[in-house]
């Protein structure tokens, strides 16, 4: 028996010990190297982090710190050069483009700085979109999209087009779109960047309410005032996490 499973019992002394119950997000020794011609650029140099279910976390850092790269990897838009990324029980570090698309569709909801709504579609259709790619039927898509719009208080505008809404309303539509597939993780990239302070604060308030409902949210920002409203701040500088990489309670 022991001979057959020889490799499994070998010590891996350079890997951080796995917690008994794995958090929702578990990053281990994540590196990302961009090969730009002659010189290699190391955007991430061994990131370890864990985020628990229901946490509201911000990632902050100056530009060029590797913040965006980390967000792309967290959002399964990109794969790390090396390291492990466990998301909701799956190892997603080295998946194909197609498999990553599926993970994004089922487990992640995105909220962008520029809202990124489809201009020609009604907001109802916009919110339905992730469900469309998930292969859901028309009726179920419509019902669930409507429910998601209710959660952000925009069900009365369901048949409007994005250009008929204010910036704050558009971002609420984007949040509804992120919520509609009941994701394990909502990833918001500078969600208040294009909004005035008051409206931005309202958006953060929605996130707070969602977090209170056990929704995991990771918010990427450079604004300390916004970051201050999250439960935990992960600060990244020069491709490594310098603060907040473990759960402080």
């Amino acid at each position: 028996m022991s001979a057959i499973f020889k490799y499994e019992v070998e010590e891996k002394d350079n890997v951080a010990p796995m917690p008994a119950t794995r958090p929702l997000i578990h990053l281990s020794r994540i590196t990302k190297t961009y090969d730009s011609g002659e010189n290699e650029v190391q955007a991430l140099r061994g990131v370890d982090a864990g985020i628990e279910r229901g946490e509201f976390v911000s990632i902050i850092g100056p530009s060029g710190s590797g913040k965006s790269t980390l967000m792309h990897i967290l959002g399964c838009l990109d794969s790390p050069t090396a390291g492990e990324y466990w998301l909701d029980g799956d190892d997603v570090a080295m998946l194909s483009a197609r498999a990553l698309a599926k993970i994004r569709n089922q487990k992640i909801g995105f909220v962008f700085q520029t809202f990124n709504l489809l201009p020609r579609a009604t907001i109802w259709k916009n919110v339905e979109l992730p469900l469309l790619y998930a292969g859901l039927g028309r009726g179920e898509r419509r019902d669930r999209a409507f429910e998601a719009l209710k959660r952000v208080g925009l069900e009365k505008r369901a048949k409007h087009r994005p250009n008929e809404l204010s910036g704050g309303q558009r971002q609420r539509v984007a949040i509804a779109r992120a919520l509609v597939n009941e994701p394990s993780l909502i990833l918001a990239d500078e969600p208040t960047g294009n909004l005035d302070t008051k409206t931005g604060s309202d958006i953060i308030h929605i996130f707070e309410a969602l977090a209170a409902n056990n929704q995991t949210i990771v918010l990427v920002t450079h604004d300390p005032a916004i970051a201050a409203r999250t439960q935990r701040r992960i600060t990244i500088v020069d491709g490594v996490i310098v603060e907040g990489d473990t759960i402080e309670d």
Partner: protein
Amino acid sequence: MILLESIIDGIRDIKDHFGRTMLQLLGVILGAGSIVATFSLSTTGKEAAMKYYKVSGGIQKIFVGNKPTGKVVLSAKALASQGLTVRDALAIQRDAKLIDLVSPVSTESMTVRYRTLEKPRSVMGIAPAYSPMNDIRAAHGRFITDNDVSSAARVAVLGSERATEFFGSEDPLGKTITINGTGYEVVGVMEEKYFSFDHKRNVMRWMNKQMYIPITTFVTRKGQSLEQGKIAFMHARMKDITKDKEAVDEIKRILMREHGVEDYQVFSRVANLRRNEQQNKMYDMTFMICGLISLIVGGIVVMNIQLASFNERVREVGTRKAIGATPAQIFAQFLSESVLVSLFGGLIGLVVGQLFCSGIGMLLRAAPAMTPDTAMKALIFAAGTGLVFGMYPAIRASRLNPIEALRTE
């Protein structure tokens, strides 16, 4: 499901950018239109020609006519030859194995009188075989019979218009009509003959204006001996249309034996038809190629616009990918859009093609019609254009890196 959404998206896209879409589709529209026009014209033309052939006696008909020989020095026999005669018709009837019917035809304008009405009118001397070979029948009474011919009877059969002209509502049967001073008994009135390519002009009307008398009567009344009686031409019918060349050669051989010089000409309708078909094929091909070229040009335009709109939509593609669209789904979306747009162009092309057809139809005084088959062909070609030229933009969209796409302003 995603296909359906893409189609709805595509329709919305056509609606939102109607002008641009139309411009983009000009090539596809013209291409589909010219395919429609080509096929419609060619099928309608063929059908009309076949109908005409049938109405005027079928494709087995052979025409034998006189031909001036020019100024070549001729042999005694050749000099003696006086062109086609009744004797030639008899020789062909007797000797040609591949021919089942022959009728000599003479025609001349004669003075025709009934009571007080006197007019110069065309009179034809024929044999009974003229009737089946030209698909004409007597509506009342009878046509010229073998008996009439062998006895050189003074009987006449009137075309429908002549019957009305000379007799009005009176029944012409049994009445005597005077032709060049000689009385003829009217034994029959022909049924009215009608055929039109344009639903306006009856190309068979000349037949309704004929008067028929036995060929023997025709020549002997002119003072010629029966055998030497000159005729204008002959109609003959081949037994087997697959042996049309042999039938023509056989007639030519017999006539050469009789005349010693080629002062006659022989045409078969089968050969005519074949020549026409060859020509039609050439026209069809030419138009087809024009249609295909404009479809290809149209396809390139579709591809260009698709690529341009793709650049506008990079962010959209990035967003769709971020929220979980797989490369295959993006590919299907873009491809179905360009197929849909091209298909839309094809539909407009059908209308344009029908306009082409009516335009050409007015020039030709014919009315080409689009068949469902033709419409299908044009639509398939149009959709195929979208499929082929939509491929490249669709592949590019499906391969787009979502991070870079989202970063694009």
